[in-house]
């Protein structure tokens, strides 16, 4: 059990040490304002990463996340401009993205195809639909929208928790409950641990697979809403490559890529580490933004390596047990 939690603690240690190093150089890093902004600026990534955690826990992958985020923004912008009430538009788009995810899950299960190619098609499709709706960046301008934007909670000493930061924290908490305290969560872990065993033990594979991708679709839609609130616009080229950032966050957060092991809380820390790298580069001012990509890639490599070592060690200790019993 300790070796299972080790990646998560490694992530946590990396985050705390990294923040301490940053704070030693820039004391302002410790302010609650920076902390709150860290959450706000990465809220869309965090929400999408919760969905991705479930997908990867089940042994799958979802490449359509970025496109679905862009689709949600464009859909909201276009429908609100056409006169639809923002609340109705939000509900509608969440239903659409959930259904979209469910269809992909059904294709993965019933066509028995690798998840990456099905969600690749989904990625093309969602992005294409964005382009068909509009190729312009459309501002979202509506009293209800402004009301949503003005919601925030003050934290002592200057920080301000915005609505989108609240959505991210809520999504993470719901994800934690869903993963560890519900039957669905158990099914997901079982499916990722060993599909055949799970099926023999009576896990409803079809229903669970469809539900996992529907959940990822719904959370991608929610992430799209967060992104649209963050930028107050819908743009069909927005959020390209976010699927890779979310996968990186999930992996850095200690979820095993082969499925079955990992936590939603770890993913949250993974997102925060990526945000911290970005914040540091902004604070520093001399480093170029592409260092973010290189640093994230480097971290990704280190954590994957750590996983391999742990899996290898676990396999060795299991081998040693076999002759003894």
């Amino acid at each position, binding site marked *: 059990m300790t070796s299972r939690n080790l990646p998560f603690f490694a992530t946590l240690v990396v985050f705390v040490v990294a923040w301490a190093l940053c704070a030693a150089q820039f004391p302002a890093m410790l302010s609650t304002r920076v902390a709150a902004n860290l959450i706000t600026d990465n809220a869309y990534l965090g929400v999408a990463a919760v969905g991705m955690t479930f997908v990867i826990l089940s042994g799958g992958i979802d490449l359509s996340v970025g496109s679905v985020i862009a689709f949600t923004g464009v859909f909201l912008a276009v429908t609100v401009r056409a006169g639809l009430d923002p609340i109705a538009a939000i509900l509608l788009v969440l239903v659409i993205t959930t259904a979209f995810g469910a269809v992909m899950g059904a294709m993965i299960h019933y066509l028995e195809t690798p998840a990456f190619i099905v969600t690749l098609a989904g990625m093309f499709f969602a992005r294409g639909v964005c382009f068909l709706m509009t190729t312009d960046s459309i501002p979202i301008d509506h009293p209800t929208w402004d009301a949503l934007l003005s919601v925030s909670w003050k934290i002592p000493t200057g920080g301000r928790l915005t609505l989108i930061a609240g959505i991210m924290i809520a999504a993470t908490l719901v994800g934690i409950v869903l993963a560890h305290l519900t039957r669905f969560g158990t099914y997901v872990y079982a499916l990722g641990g060993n599909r055949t065993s799970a099926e023999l033990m009576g896990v409803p594979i079809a229903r669970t697979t469809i539900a996992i991708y529907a959940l990822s679709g719904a959370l991608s839609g929610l992430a799209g809403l967060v992104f649209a609130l963050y930028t107050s616009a819908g743009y069909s080229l927005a959020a390209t490559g976010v699927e890779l950032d979310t996968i990186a966050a999930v992996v850095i957060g200690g979820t095993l890529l*082969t499925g079955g092991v990992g936590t939603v809380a770890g993913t949250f820390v993974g997102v925060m580490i990526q945000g911290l790298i970005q914040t540091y580069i902004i604070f520093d001012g001399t480093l170029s933004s592409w260092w973010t990509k290189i640093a994230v*890639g480097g971290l*990704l490599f280190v954590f994957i390596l750590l996983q391999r070592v742990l899996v290898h060690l676990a396999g060795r200790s299991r081998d040693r047990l076999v002759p003894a019993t």
Partner: protein
Amino acid sequence: MTSTLPGRLSFGALPQFATLAAVLLANWLVFPDFFDLRLQDGRLFGSVIDVLNRGAPVAILALGMTLVIATKGVDLSVGAVMAICGAVAATMAAADYSLVAILAAALAVGALCGLWNGFLVAVLDIQPIIATLILMVTGRGIAQLVTEGQIVTFTHEGLIAVAGSSALGLPMPVVIALVLGLALAALVRLTALGLLIESIGVNRTASTYAGVDSRSVLLATYMISGLTAAVAGVIAASDIRGADANNAGLWLELDAILAVVVGGTSLFGGRFSILLSLVGALVIQAMNTGILLSGYPPELNLIVKAVVIAAILVLQSPAAGRLFGFLRRS
């Protein structure tokens, strides 16, 4: 076992050629001048030549991708490797190195990237999609480092000729794609390499136990993919006479995967055809050109591609296979 080359082409290749013919026919219907060719200054010009020329980079990427997918892997980094190699080539061209030195350096960098991917997959046993994701994420950052964040432009005659000149009346990229395709097809089909790749794709563990040096074969496969990406990157840089680290080869990894899948190579590994992947790349480019010619918004492209992937998935799926088998029996 259909291991002879002619056998594969005559029987299994029918759907691909039929698709290509259908797409070309559709293009001809919306644009009657589609098949018109004219010869000027010893070079052919026309829409068909344009399809071939524009499709060449994806076709070259698809060559390496075919072998990788045949081992039941995937190489997501080819677009980023294109950007790195293009950046290397453009930076060296701006500093006036000789063409030989530029090409050697670009290819060496491509091979090195491939070796890195191969090392992660073959030695560290990381799933290919994740292993190559690392380079996909970092690659563009590395390319930015090479160009120091700028779009490097050059007036190097030799490098411009890589995409700008012609041979046998055809644009040079088309000739390069054809020669590479034939060379690679010969390499895998006239030696045992193709068979080894297929056996690893079917079952890597069993192949290893049967004496296949699967580690070396996988390393070689990913290196070939890195090399083809380097060639495509040099062509792309030569084409725009510069290197754009952000946009060179962007999303081309997906087009290359699509070309391979359209070419009938199984995503489950173990069955591949290099020449049909070239046909697949042509189908994709002909679709792109057709959508542009017919006056539809180019944005429709993505949806068409998605529908094509979905259709192929349905046809390739084990479930469909069982259904066909059931219908045939009854």
